[in-house]
């Protein structure tokens, strides 16, 4: 009898052991520690990576940059462009169990628009007010037609937060965010890790297979890769271009890439203060000379093993809004020297070249320096840390400034705040009324072809004036273990976690 009992117990335990799987944990290595995890107050690129697992947005994008439903099912813009009606997905709940409905959506959007310190305000500036049409429909009433609005709702401005939690925590919401994504926030230790776990009530829960995700910020790219190779991490972001060979040669690792939405380029101070008064700032011909002195192909070859893509516009050559009429120029030293002569330059031109501190920026700057020297332009490199460079860029205390923009889905997001006269990121101090008119015009039509035509005129002006020199576009480089299945990289650089399986 006793033996029978023991046997029964053993069998039971074995069955339990067989049916209970071990918890799967996906460990993701980030390149830096995110800032506050509040969609209204956040500003870092790496924070968006974490948000993609905890905070769902009204819409998302696919790899062709088309808008697809997420928490909202459809959108319809009125004929005059001043109202957008959005139908919401039914039966969605936040991580604290609260219902997601039109009131919650209205609350989230108004929070983005009105909260103190909200960085989403400029993104939703065109919205005048929001009407609740029925429990699953909201209507955004705009001050003026604004074509890029839907694209804004595929990013942080479209992230929905639980009204109950947001009201209770105020600006401390980011310490324990409560949203409606596939995973819910568990804990965060600053500069150490962020832990999230599967939310059973997610609207698409059947496609979520991994139980937990741990985000680990590891600043040093070499150490990040070392962790991936040794099995300490399952996926890392911002792999160095020069490490691609190592990843391709490792049979346990796989590379996932996409061409970025943004660009890497150089601002040239053309209108801010004393520094703009040099030959580079004053003469478009000298700027064109610098443009022609740079061999973009060689630059990407030397610094990035040829893995990145040369560019000359504010969207990459693979973007639907790229103007094929204006291709990337080849290096032409003779023409550059001739232009310098035409501009009346005698002697060499010194340029104060502000370069933000970074692993690869320094090498890029040094190659540019060598190339520019051949046409008579002496770039004096000044490696500046991020905080100082922002201040000095704003104040115009530079002559050339190497910078990067992470990119937005809508082309307007890559150009408006940079080239509109007196816009916040118009570091060059560029003011061209013709360009301003075109920038505003391009925001109105919903038809992409119409916008293309307007942007063509704008491109011609910008490529003559050169307030910015666009240099190249990075590839988003994600490396992960082969045990991770189903991972596809989108051009916005985010790590989407729905549909992933970990063996």
């Amino acid at each position, binding site marked *: 009898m006793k033996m029978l009992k023991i046997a029964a117990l053993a069998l039971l335990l074995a069955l339990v052991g067989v049916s209970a799987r071990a918890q799967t944990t996906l460990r993701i290595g980030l390149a830096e*520690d995110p*800032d*506050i*995890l509040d969609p209204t*107050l956040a*500003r*870092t*690129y790496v924070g968006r990576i974490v948000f993609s697992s905890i905070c769902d947005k009204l819409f998302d994008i696919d790899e062709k940059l088309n808008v697809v439903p997420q928490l909202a099912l459809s959108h319809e813009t009125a004929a005059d462009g001043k109202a957008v009606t959005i139908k919401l997905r039914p039966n969605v709940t936040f991580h604290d169990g609260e219902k997601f409905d039109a009131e919650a959506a209205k609350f989230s959007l108004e929070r983005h628009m009105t909260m*103190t*310190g*909200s*960085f989403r*305000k*400029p993104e939703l500036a065109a919205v005048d007010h929001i009407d609740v049409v029925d429990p699953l429909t909201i209507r955004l009433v705009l001050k003026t037609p604004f074509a890029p609005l839907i694209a804004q709702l595929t990013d942080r401005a479209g992230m929905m937060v639980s009204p109950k939690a947001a009201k209770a925590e105020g*600006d*401390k919401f*980011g*310490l324990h965010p409560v949203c409606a994504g596939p995973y819910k926030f568990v804990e965060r*230790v*600053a*500069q*150490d890790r962020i832990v999230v776990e599967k939310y059973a009530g997610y609207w698409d829960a059947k496609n979520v297979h991994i139980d937990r995700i741990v985000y*680990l*910020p*590891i*600043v*040093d790219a*070499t*150490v990040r890769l*070392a*962790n991936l*190779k*040794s099995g*300490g991490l399952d996926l890392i972001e911002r792999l160095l271009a020069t490490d691609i060979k190592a990843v391709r040669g490792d049979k346990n690792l796989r590379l996932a890439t996409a061409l970025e939405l943004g660009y890497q380029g150089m601002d040239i101070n053309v209108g801010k203060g004393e520094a703009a008064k040099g030959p580079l700032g004053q003469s478009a011909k000298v700027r064109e000379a610098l443009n022609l002195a740079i061999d973009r192909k060689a630059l990407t070859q030397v610094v990035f093993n040829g893995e990145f893509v040369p560019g000359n516009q504010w969207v990459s050559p693979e973007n639907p809004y790229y103007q094929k009429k204006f291709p990337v120029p080849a290096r032409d030293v003779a023409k550059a020297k001739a232009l310098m002569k035409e501009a009346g330059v005698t002697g060499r031109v010194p340029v104060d070249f502000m370069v933000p501190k970074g692993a690869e920026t320094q090498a890029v700057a040094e190659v540019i320096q060598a190339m520019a020297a051949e046409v008579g332009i002496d770039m004096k490199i000044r490696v500046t*840390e*991020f*905080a*100082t460079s*922002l*201040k*000095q860029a*704003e104040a115009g205390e530079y002559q050339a400034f190497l910078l990067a*923009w*992470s990119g937005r889905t809508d082309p307007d997001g890559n150009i408006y*705040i940079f080239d509109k006269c007196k816009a*916040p*990121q118009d570091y060059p101090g560029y003011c061209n009324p013709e360009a301003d008119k075109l920038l505003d015009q391009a925001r109105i039509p919903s038809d992409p072809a119409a916008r293309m035509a307007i942007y063509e005129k704008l491109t011609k002006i910008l490529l003559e004036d050169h307030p910015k020199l666009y240099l190249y576009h990075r590839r988003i480089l994600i490396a992960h273990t082969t045990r991770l299945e189903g991972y596809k990289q989108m051009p916005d650089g985010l790590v989407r976690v729905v549909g992933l399986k970990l063996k």
Partner: protein
Amino acid sequence: MLKFIGKRLLQLIPTLFFVSVLIFSLQHLLPGDPALVMAGEENDPAVVEQIRKQYHLDQAIPLQYVYWVKGVFSGDLGESMRIKEPVLALILEKLPVTAQLACMAIIIALTIGISAGVISAVKKNSVWDYAANVFALWGISTPNFWLGIMLIFLFSVKLGWLPASGFVPLHEDWQASLASTVMPAFVLGNAIAGILMRHTRSAMLQALESDYVRTARAKGLLERRVILKHALRNALTPIITLGALEFGTLLSGAVLTEQIFTIPGFGKLIVDAVFNRDYAVVQGVVLVTATTFIFLNLLADIAYHLVNPRLRGMA
């Protein structure tokens, strides 16, 4: 004795005042606007202005100092602008991490430093002397970030014996904890080993020539016994007090090592905060670590005076 302690305690006050002024002004004199840094890519003048108001950044610097000090006295060290976590909470979170790393580093440093110092003193001017010297000195002669990277390359990537980064607390999993801290502790301890070796050596040399050692030798005791039991024991006190001082340095100085090994301790917290212009974090953490350092100094001084009767008369 009490008079001595009292006087020294009184001296703490102006010192701490100067520490607060020093770290506060250094932060605020740094070029760059914290509100702009917070905004980063999302630069919008209205929002930036809001942030500046919220954190009193639009006030005159002396006034901001007063706000900060007032807060400190009421236990509020401010909050991190970047992640909105209170500075005090951040400090309490990181303290066990840095403390564990510091303890391990000191143990390694004492082991290497004392043994090298003893050998070097006993076998003075011989090959062993130089060997021990170089062995202990190579720690301060290598940049710790370079040594760290080399160690990661060897032990994590090539051999796979140790994790490349990260920290596991002792109470969670003591084996994983040791594995994650042994490399950074070694890098840190190595650097201090050199300093400890020097002091051990000179203390030992002094002890070896002292009267009681001569007496012990005259008595015919074994040389090894003389060294270990008599000389070393008397040389140990100043060394231990020095160790305590270095512990204080470790609390705040492991900046680059923590960066390389991704240990979430004070060092990493401070350096990131400096580059992000997260004033409150830098000021709060430095104030805490400086206070600890000064107290440890004081304790070491007291201990030294207690042990050394000759100095007791001096105030």
